[in-house]
């Protein structure tokens, strides 16, 4: 939907400042690589169509050129970041648990590196002008299981340890966080959202939340760590409590 910048589903990826400055080069490499196919495409377009006699064709196909360019940039950004992501995952596979928030901690370190790699495709896809190929499209490439026939693009969803079922509606500006930072501890835990769930606007799901089938979570509420919401019920409040009929 037509959100302003403050409601955009772009990822404010939390990257440790100490690591961000060191590994900035990784970020730039992905940006430059993802522009390469676009440059190639434009070059071919100019060479084949900027000729005497067919200038008008060049001009009138230009809008289509821009349409293709936007989508090409999105897809190449995803593919190049996946390339780096698989390498990182081979070096150190991601796992759930409670870790120390310290650069020397390997889990925390590699989680930050993965975020640096994912930042550019998430940004470019959430800020594209069209209503398709938004966050859901990107997240599916990163291995988040998201079912069909739902509304997901208005919210911010973590890019790993999340699985979302079919017919799920996630309200505007909701956050699904599979990571948490508590004092000097760093938590990674999987969030499971089953089929037919409805999550209201401005909800926050904390790591470990398990929402079972046909649950309705009212707007402006949040769940606790490791909270389990039972089937066919309505939840509401800070933190979410069962609403009795």
């Amino acid at each position, binding site marked *: *939907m*037509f*959100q*302003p*910048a*403050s*409601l955009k589903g772009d990822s404010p990826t939390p990257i440790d400042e100490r690591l961000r400055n060191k590994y900035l080069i990784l970020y730039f490499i992905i940006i430059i690589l993802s522009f390469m196919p676009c440059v190639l495409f434009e070059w071919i377009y100019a060479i084949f169509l900027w000729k*005497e006699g067919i*200038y008008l064709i060049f*001009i*009138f196909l*230009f*809008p289509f050129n*821009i*349409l293709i360019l936007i989508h090409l940039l999105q897809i190449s950004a995803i593919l190049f970041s996946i390339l780096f992501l698989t390498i990182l995952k081979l070096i150190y596979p991601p796992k759930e648990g409670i870790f120390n928030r310290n650069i020397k901690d390997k889990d925390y370190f590699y989680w930050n590196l993965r975020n640096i790699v994912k930042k550019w495709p998430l940004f470019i896809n959430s800020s594209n*002008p*069209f*209503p*398709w190929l938004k966050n859901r499209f990107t997240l599916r490439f990163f291995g988040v299981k998201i079912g069909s*026939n739902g*509304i997901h*693009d*208005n919210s911010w969803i973590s890019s790993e340890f999340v699985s979302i079922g079919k*017919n799920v*509606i*996630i*309200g*505007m*500006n909701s956050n699904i966080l599979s990571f948490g930072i508590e004092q000097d501890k760093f938590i990674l835990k999987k969030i499971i959202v089953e089929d*037919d769930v*409805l*999550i*209201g*606007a*401005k909800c926050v799901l904390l790591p470990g939340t398990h929402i079972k089938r046909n649950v*309705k*979570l*009212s*707007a*402006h509420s949040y769940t606790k760590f490791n909270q389990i919401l039972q089937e066919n019920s*309505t939840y*509401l409040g*800070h933190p979410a409590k069962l*609403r009795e009929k």
Partner: protein
Amino acid sequence: METKDIPKFKVEFISTSGVYKTPFTLIVILQFLVGCLLIIIINMWYYNDLYYLLTGNQFLPFLLIGQWWEWFLLPMNIYGNLLLFAFSIILFSAVIFKILNKIHPPEEGVFERGSKEWKYTHRRFWTAYFPIWLARSLPLPWSDIFVYRFLGVHVGRNVVAYEGYIDPELIEIGDYTMTSLNICIFSHLIYQERIFIKNVKIGKACIVGPHTIISPGTILQDGAVLGVNSYTWINQNLEGDLIHVGIPVNITLPIQSVEDSQKKAERIKTESKKNTDFND
């Protein structure tokens, strides 16, 4: 005035979100191409002139001026292209929006999935998507209010409604109202298989605080203030000249008027004078 009878709809919770993607979403491409048309025609003429000035050749055999001062139009051309693109799209999609409104005017009530109303609200939302997106990304702060007025939303004078989500139909915003960051004003509410649509009225000189949700059917009377981080239930009526807070709204607080604060200031002054006298 009594509102139209709506079949009873038991509300246990508020869920407000966007709308589903339908094949009608592809209208964005049509809007994009229509927006490009005018730009192509103007730029074709302009860049032909620049090409002539650079190389001495021209790729179009007509409409040549070829004067040196045309270089000075280049900055204006870049900014003008942006504005031209946006405003031609806004005009075009406002026309489509009006036509859809004529075919099936928006109604209040509860509707099943797949009904005519469901389809047409989705269609109207997706026609409104691209012009509002563009207006929000333009460097003009009032451009999105301009678009909402074009689409038929009643927005009064001197309204601040910049950084928030507002539905493009069945909403009235009075004069001098301010809406803050990160707000959502909804006139529709999607349950799994049903859609609930009702008018939202925001009166004159209201203030809607940051991080709030206004649900369908809410009425904010003149001078009401909705506090930070609160949301309204369906069909809630907030009285004027009061502060309303709560999740959902359940607490009302008085607004201190200017006279009250002047009295307070005078009282503090006299008290401090007494204190200083005492100290001397």
